[in-house]
């Protein structure tokens, strides 16, 4: 016996400034939509229940867990993934800061940190170390011990300010 094929929904949204479309079942998570349907594997999937933060993407300017959103719910919205932050030749302040401060080791959690912090420094351009800790409190890293991630978060805001000056 085979199950009836699932109904598909056309999901059209903007990812990193590009209009993208794919037909997916309603139960497709936004994280899997980005990775499997659009081939954007920069967004990582860790716990799939909202605890680890690895899958964080920016939705209409605010960081959100892509594993806790259905792709169909994201129809018509603007998504920024880690691929949309910068390039090796033109890094986003957050990417430059994480490199300078050694804010990563294995890199699994990094896309989630980068998107979270990128949105955070837009909102708070001059964070204290305490603000930085609060901002990244929902992201887990098993390598770094967080010290350098907190430094990188404060440094990212500094770089963004320098670039604006």
């Amino acid at each position, binding site marked *: 016996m085979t*199950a009836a094929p*699932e*109904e598909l*929904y056309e999901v059209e949204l903007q990812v990193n400034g590009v209009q993208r479309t794919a037909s997916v*079942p*309603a*139960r497709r*998570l936004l994280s*899997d939509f980005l990775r499997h349907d659009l081939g954007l594997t920069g967004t990582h999937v860790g716990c*799939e*229940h*909202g605890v680890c*933060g690895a899958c*964080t993407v920016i*939705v209409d300017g*605010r*960081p*959100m*867990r892509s*594993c*806790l*959103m*259905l792709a*169909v*719910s994201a129809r018509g919205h603007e998504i920024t993934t880690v691929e949309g932050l910068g390039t090796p030749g033109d890094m986003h302040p957050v990417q430059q800061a994480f490199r300078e401060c050694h804010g990563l080791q294995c890199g699994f959690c990094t896309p989630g940190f980068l998107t*979270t912090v990128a949105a*955070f420094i837009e909102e708070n351009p001059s964070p204290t170390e305490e603000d930085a800790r*609060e*901002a990244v*409190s*929902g*992201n887990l890293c098993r390598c770094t011990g967080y010290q350098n991630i907190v430094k990188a978060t404060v440094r990212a805001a500094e770089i963004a300010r320098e670039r604006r000056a």
Partner: protein
Amino acid sequence: MKPSPFAYSAPESLDELLRVLADVGSDGKVLAGGQSLLPILNMRLAAPSHIVDINRLPGLAFVQVDESGVRVGALARHADVERDDEAHRVLPLLRQALRLVAHPVIRNRGTTVGSLAHADPAGEMTAVLALTGGTVELARLGSTRTVGAADFFLAPLESAVQAGELAVSAFFPAFPSRTGTAFVEVARRHGDYAMCGVAAAVTLDADGAVVAARTAYVSVGPTPTVVDLTETVTGRPAATADWGPAAELARASVEPESDIHASADYRSHLTGVLTERALRAAAGAAA
């Protein structure tokens, strides 16, 4: 893991939504922010056959404030309520509690009304609704009703929202003047479910003496418990009040259970310590 298959609707008007909810009845589940629902679906702890997504509904993302209190629409995200300066002015307890709801990224998506409907015994906003004596407005096809906080939380993860109903908004009344509030909790890690959480409201008279002191608790009972502690402190000047007897009465008023995170004894201990701490902070804010 991934959710089981389900049928999906995303109505674009309240009328259409209530019609869909009436049709699907108890097979349907409303999706708002999804920060509690999606983990449950992903872990397959539940497999509703129909998801009714309300994120396309217009006009429900509001935070309305006047001197009488704050009304929050079904699609207002926790972050919208937390950042609303007018809401903070009229009812500081909202921001005090919201800062303890999970992590900032979760609050960007999760809704305040959704967390009430979810009725998690650890959910901070359930205690806020209980302590303020707030109400939730429920709509079904052809009728609406308003349910007070005391009747809204029935059991762990069970609110008064019935099949076919949508929680459209919640109203959090403002406290009387010269009332200070505080929300304190202890969790294993910042942003985790609290092992005990206390919302407190202390009202003073013009001379700074305590007129009323009430608290509400999360994670130490099946539903948010409200305790009136006024008799233990009434008439005392807030600045020099002994909050010890209030903490004792609070401990006697809750019946926490043991689980993997904390024993009943420890939760009871926290109830006393945090009650004292919350009352002192609330009295300080009232002065």
